[in-house]
């Protein structure tokens, strides 16, 4: 996708550079009926499972997103375990006991004002081999953007995953900088690497500057295909060349009854890095 962006950029450069321009325009008022949005995750790690419920809002009135209160939220396991989540305010519902087990199928049930929504996700088995590396480099040497705030250096994280060959695998990386989540939408599959080592790298981006000694946590989530498709289409809808799509559409959700968002059962491997000096 990055390459495509670049082709477009390059091909257009001599034509567009000096002549193209942008301006903010008024395209009128749009109304839409509020729809339920769920963001729910259950993992094989200790800690509560969190489901966040919000609503959509008109595009010309994006102030505070309304949260959904007073809903009944329940998570059940294919092995028969069931728990009703407790409302913790601001549309957040948390569990006390339920813990995800790889291989099990999880079902989320939501009853909000008499409307019933549900979603199903199967927790994949975690991969066993996930390795990380980090290096400091001068910004802008191989196509990455220069460091923010005039910082001349950037940090490149490389990773390697030994992909199990017997089934399809889908991965998501969630990145934290000093325990603050800074990236959560990087997903990939093993279509071209099934059973091999998947190697890639990326430049860390944050609105804050990185300082030597800062803690970077990278969570490798093994996600199911629906969740992969959700994040893949989320990226199509929000980034890169989405503006050239002839038919923009909502990310593919696994929530039924017209609900938006996702419910993911995933296994997680956490790894840590320190920003080098």
């Amino acid at each position, binding site marked *: 996708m990055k390459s495509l962006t670049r082709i477009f950029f390059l*091909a257009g450069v001599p034509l567009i550079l000096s002549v193209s321009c942008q301006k903010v325009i008024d395209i009128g008022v*749009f109304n839409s009926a509020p729809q339920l949005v769920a963001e729910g995750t259950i993992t094989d790690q200790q800690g509560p499972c969190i489901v966040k419920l919000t609503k959509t809002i008109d595009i010309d009135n994006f*102030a505070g997103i309304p949260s959904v209160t007073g809903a009944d939220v329940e998570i059940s396991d294919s092995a028969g375990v069931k728990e009703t989540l407790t409302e913790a305010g601001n549309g957040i519902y948390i569990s006390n006991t339920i813990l995800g087990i790889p291989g099990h199928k999880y079902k989320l049930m939501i009853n909000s004002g008499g409307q019933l929504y549900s979603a199903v996700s199967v927790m994949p088995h975690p991969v066993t081999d996930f390795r990380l590396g980090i290096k400091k480099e001068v910004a802008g040497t191989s196509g990455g953007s220069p460091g923010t705030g005039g910082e001349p250096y950037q940090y490149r994280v490389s990773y390697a995953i030994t992909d199990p060959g017997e089934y399809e695998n889908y991965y998501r990386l969630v990145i934290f900088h000093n325990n603050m989540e800074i990236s959560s939408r990087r997903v990939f599959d093993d279509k071209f690497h099934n059973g091999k080592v998947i190697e890639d790298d990326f430049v860390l981006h944050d609105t804050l500057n990185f300082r030597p000694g800062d803690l970077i946590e990278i969570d490798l989530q093994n996600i199911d295909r629906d969740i992969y*498709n959700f994040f893949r289409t989320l990226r199509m809808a*929000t980034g890169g060349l989405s503006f050239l*799509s002839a038919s923009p559409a909502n990310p*593919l959700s696994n929530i039924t009854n017209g609900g938006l*968002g996702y419910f993911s059962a995933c296994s997680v491997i956490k790894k840590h890095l320190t920003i080098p000096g």
Partner: protein
Amino acid sequence: MKGFMKRWILSCMAFMWVSVICGQNKFVVSGYVTDSKSGEELIGAAVSIQEIPAAGVYTNEYGFYSLSVPQGKLTIAVSLIGYEYLSVPVDITKSVKLNLDLTQKITRLGEVTVSSEKRNDNVTRNQMGIDKLNIQEIKNLPSFFGEKDVLKTLQLLPGIKSAGEGNSGFNVRGGTTDQNLILLDGATVYNPSHLMGFFSVFNPDAIKDVTMYKGSLPAEFGGRLSSVLDIRMDDGNNKKIEASGGIGLISSRLTVGGPLRKERGSFIVSARRTYADLIVRGLARAGVLNDTTLRDPKLYFYDLNAKANYRFTEKDRVFLSGYFGRDVLGLPDFGFDWGNSTATVRWNHLFNDKLFLNTSLIFNNFTYTISNGSTVDPINIVSKIRDFSVRQDYQYSSGHNNQVRFGFESTWHRMVPGTITGADTNTVFKSLPVSNSVESSVYFSHTLNLTQHLNINYGLRISEFSLLGDAPFFIYSSYNYADSAKSIVDSTRKVISYIRPEPRFSVNYVFNDRNSVKASYTRNVQYLHLLSNSTTGSPTDMWIPSSYNTLPEISDQYAFGYYRNFASNNWEFSAEVYYKSLFQQVDYINGAILNFNSNVESQLLYGKGRAYGLELLLKKKYGRFSGWIGYTLSRTERRFEDINRGAWYPARQDRTHDVSVVAIYEFPRKWTFSSTWVYNTGNAVTFPKGVYVIDNRPVLLYTDRNGNRMPAYHRLDISVTKQFTERKNYRSSLTFSLYNAYSHDNAWTITFRQNDKTGQIEAVQTTLFKLVPSVSYDFRF
């Protein structure tokens, strides 16, 4: 595969030697109409007999005509735009061969007496929905970056709409861009654009004639739903060597042509190359572009056209023509290049003065290659579409009121959607299966003058498409997911075939030499489908053949028109209405993966479409001042079970109003002023209606497909050409053009983003081109 090829070749050959029996009961005048200076055959010249106004024919694609005449003293008249009117008295006592030379009109000063003879072919011609472009017309109009462009000039005509700002793709009567068959000397050009669509592959210096059929296709054409664009390359001067060329802001051109042997054969070679990379490099070095990878890019395109013809006997003539063009893009870690090549061998044979045969062997290839640019671990992905075709077209004229055309065509398509070479050991990228298919057709059409006022044309084309084995094929259940692949057919023989009859009918009632009405019905079938989900189109868009899941696309077009000429045929007016029903149209599921997906058909949705409209054209063809006003009122809609809950919705290319005004004023041999103004309703587009939050970041909410409109588009282009005084046969001119002269902010895209300060979502309009000045220098000697 081999067995199949043999059978295919044999059956094609069997067809070629169909014996033809024809009687001879009247005298016949036949021959070629040529340009007196260059000796080039002229296409579409009207040849008539002054004494018998109803008898008239047009020269065919090779400049040949054949006219049945009674005995006696007659006057043969020939007319063609841009040429002096010619009339020749003949005394007919037997059938004669009469080659006619027309002189190009250079000075228009003496043009006081305007002959009304046969300049009304728009009224009397049976064919409707046809637009012919004179190459000089194209050259006189303002251009984008000084590049004269056939496809963009066509977009100024009613019913033909640009696919986007600066884009050479076009939509005809509500069709998609892949529903146009673009032929260069008979060879299909699958991707007619350079540089992401900003320029077309047709170098105007190498082109002689451009004919566009808007849906009402003659029976000899088929394979696409919306239109056929028949482009013929220049043949070259068969009397003397000449060269022409031009230097522009982003490209230069050079053309050389001349006799192979005087008056027997000629050749032409034409080349064009852009130097956009020099500009990018300059900008990068000057620090305007801060991406260091752009410091040494490769970025250019080139075109090479070559053609030769030779007349072996009075009755046999052979043409060889070829085109090769490529776009090259290279960065240190990434390479991408694509292009078309075509080759055509044609043999014109005259059995007698009534029966003309053209036999063509055609090859074309479209390829793109993506590479990682590495010399250590090179990876290349190659995709190809390659066709071999053979066709024969017979034209038989019996009497001045009968013309029969028949023939056949057979094409072997080989599509390689993606082959990877040199992949590293960590990749298991499998090359996508190659598909082979054969598309064949036979056709017959008969044009008959029933009375002096009424002529009809009826025809039938029967097309057949066979998908051949070698690759696994999947059948997807109605819900179209890869998992639903029901069965796999893995065979080395014919997998599936479709036969579709395509009836064609048209009628023309001529009230008098200035007024006529025409009506037509046409069914077209399309067996190849282009998968593209971007607004601009890309060389990586994939063509797929009809299969178990994707059925042949069908369109039925009904059209009716009124034609009226004024002021001694100096002005012509036409009004056409059409209604088109489309079946088996292709769209995509949400989040479709179209590239490198071996289950790509699982991403498709099938539905229907309808398009209807009114097209008005008022044109002044002759004189110092020429030009036209075109207006289209139209609607294009689609209906898919899984889009917008199965309701009709506007297609992206639906535009209610479309206006174009073209004006050219010439001071002979000195100055030419020209301007074009276009206005159209914005495309249908999908804007978000709401917003929600995922991971604390806004995500836009879409409800209905194509429920919104882009703002209306309008633009004025002007150009001035100064012709310098001719010196020792050296003629030159300098052209200044202004694109978007009043610098209107036309919306190319409208995107939505969160304002950093207010946090609100705002709509941002991007304009590609405001005022763009350009200059070019052209010469000829």
